[in-house]
């Protein structure tokens, strides 16, 4: 995916970090989202046509993507455009702050687009309406077909400026697309933009595929496939489409995940009824055994500094979550609550572990500190599992299945997201039924 975009941050007009009046607190559920006006980006009259791109509509479309992104956070309330009081081009030069305050907006985004010499140049500004000043101004140049990504990058920059956290809009989700009756599901690897746009299918559905996960640079995916009826962990290069088996194991390998530096794949290997955790160095192909226990050890996930691993084991009799040093030493059980636990995933911020909890016939997605304290259950449902973190560690995406009737009808699998505050639960739209989501890191860093 390296080829897809080269974006130059052209010039920074101003960045004022100090003392803005508006600041969005994302550490708790926000019941009073910030009213924000996203003015359509105006098209510079020097603009040229580019292929089939309807550049006249581009300004409008980009502003709509930004609005949709902001709305999805639950932290912002994008105002309706028909109440807007100034033309986009004039507002972009300098807004009449008192007029925008009249429609209760607290922040305003304006912008300008030029398509020239087959390049798209987008310039935008964020205005603090209460303090009557500019908070941020940036400009990007890229190829015109990348216009959706520009909208996501602008969203990230503004989110960052207003919340003090990095954004998660210029990202992708890889997942398993599902079709067909429950007992004959056809599953394919699929990838899409975080907002559900641009779905591409990476496998044909000839064999069962499960649990895809990105490497840190989002170019490689590790997943499990039943190719030739041999369940093994595979590596897929998204750009070239080349797939290869990971390691040379004489049995099932599963539950793969990359190390935070992308140099290793960690996974389970099952032999003679016992699953243990192994890692493989991608360059040297050296395989290292990390756990050696007669119980099931699976679902390993590294801490972001690579020093620790959290994993799932039933060595106590039932599924619980454990941590250990990445060499397998200092194994420590961290879950003791009632119920059983699975799918631990370490937050990219390092502070929390997300998990699935099963208790009295219900499934929960929750988070806890990495020592097992401070457990918080975010959502309860009939069936849900497999949380994956947004790159800023603020949102979890997971999948949820519905109950089926005696004929297997009524079964669905869908992606959902929820903030770690427990608020803002949302259906993530996909073209087909979907499961096993994995969130990429930011595509442009």
């Amino acid at each position: 995916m390296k080829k897809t975009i080269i974006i130059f941050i052209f010039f920074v007009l101003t960045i004022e970090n100090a003392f803005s009046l508006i600041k969005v607190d994302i550490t708790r559920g926000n019941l009073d989202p910030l009213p924000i006006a996203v003015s359509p980006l105006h098209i510079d009259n020097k603009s040229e046509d580019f292929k089939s791109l309807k550049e006249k509509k581009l300004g409008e479309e980009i502003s709509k993507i930004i609005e949709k992104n902001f709305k999805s956070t639950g932290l912002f309330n994008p105002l309706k455009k028909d109440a807007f009081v100034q033309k986009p081009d004039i507002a972009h030069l300098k807004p009449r702050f008192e007029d925008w305050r009249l429609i209760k907006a607290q922040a305003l985004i304006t912008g300008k687009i030029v398509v020239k010499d087959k390049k798209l140049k987008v310039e935008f500004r964020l205005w603090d309406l209460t303090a009557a000043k500019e908070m941020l101004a940036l400009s990007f140049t890229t190829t015109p077909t990348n216009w959706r990504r520009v909208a996501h990058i602008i969203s990230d920059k503004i989110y960052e400026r207003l919340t003090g956290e990095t954004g998660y809009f210029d990202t992708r989700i890889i997942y398993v697309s599902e079709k067909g009756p429950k007992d004959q599901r056809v599953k394919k690897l699929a990838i899409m933009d975080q907002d559900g746009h641009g779905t591409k299918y990476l496998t044909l559905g000839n064999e069962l595929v499960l649990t895809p996960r990105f490497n840190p640079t989002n170019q490689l995916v590790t997943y499990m496939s039943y190719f030739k009826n041999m369940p093994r962990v595979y590596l897929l290069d998204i750009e070239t489409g080349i797939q290869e088996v990971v390691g040379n194991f004489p049995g099932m390998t599963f539950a793969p995940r990359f190390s935070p530096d992308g140099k290793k794949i960690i996974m389970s290997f099952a032999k003679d009824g016992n699953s243990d955790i192994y890692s493989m160095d991608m360059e040297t192909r050296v395989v290292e055994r990390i756990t050696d226990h007669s119980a099931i050890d699976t679902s390993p996930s590294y801490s972001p500094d690579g020093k620790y691993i959290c994993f799932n084991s039933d060595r106590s009799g039932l599924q619980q979550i454990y941590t250990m040093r990445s060499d397998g030493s200092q194994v420590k059980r961290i879950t003791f609550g009632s119920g059983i636990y699975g799918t631990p995933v370490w937050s990219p911020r390092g502070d929390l572990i997300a998990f699935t909890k099963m208790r009295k016939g219900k499934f929960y997605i929750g988070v806890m500190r990495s020592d097992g304290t401070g457990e918080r259950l975010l959502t309860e449902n009939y069936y849900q599992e497999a949380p994956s973190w947004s790159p800023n560690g603020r949102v979890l995406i997971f999948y949820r299945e519905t109950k089926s009737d005696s004929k297997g009808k009524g079964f669905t699998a869908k992606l959902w997201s929820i903030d770690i505050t427990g608020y803002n639960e949302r259906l993530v739209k996909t073209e087909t039924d979907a499961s096993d989501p994995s969130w990429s890191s930011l595509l442009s860093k």
Partner: protein
Amino acid sequence: MKFNSALKNFVLVLFSTLLISACSTAKKASVDTVDDVYTGTDTVEYLANGVPDRVFFATNKSSLTTRSRDTLRKQATYLRKNKDLTVTIEGHADERGTREYNLALGERRANAAKDYLMTYGVSGKRISVISYGKEKPVNPASSPLAWSQNRRSVTIKAN
């Protein structure tokens, strides 16, 4: 009084019908699972006459019940008689667990069956195992009965 006795008969018939149907539901429930393990025959196929192809497990467990061991001894006898046969044992889990753990659990169940066949004289070289976790339910319903039928290991002729 003729009317009365006719009514009486009718009530009697009705009562006994209710009694029978009550019996049959009670009987059905007790036949289907014992201690969370499916004991019915609805989904079972046969490797040969009198040789069931599958055994069932309790939730999150991979231990073999007396009944399962009986089935596996029949399979072992059959396989010892048919020396050229090789088999694949598929291990499965129900849908009420996390996907990755279920893959491991299916593998453990298939190996529990394999180990037992080996104890009864079938060479391990003739048996391969594969786990499907919760991916291939035999009964797609979301009910305790369906889940008990799906927690299984199935011996399939491979040649």
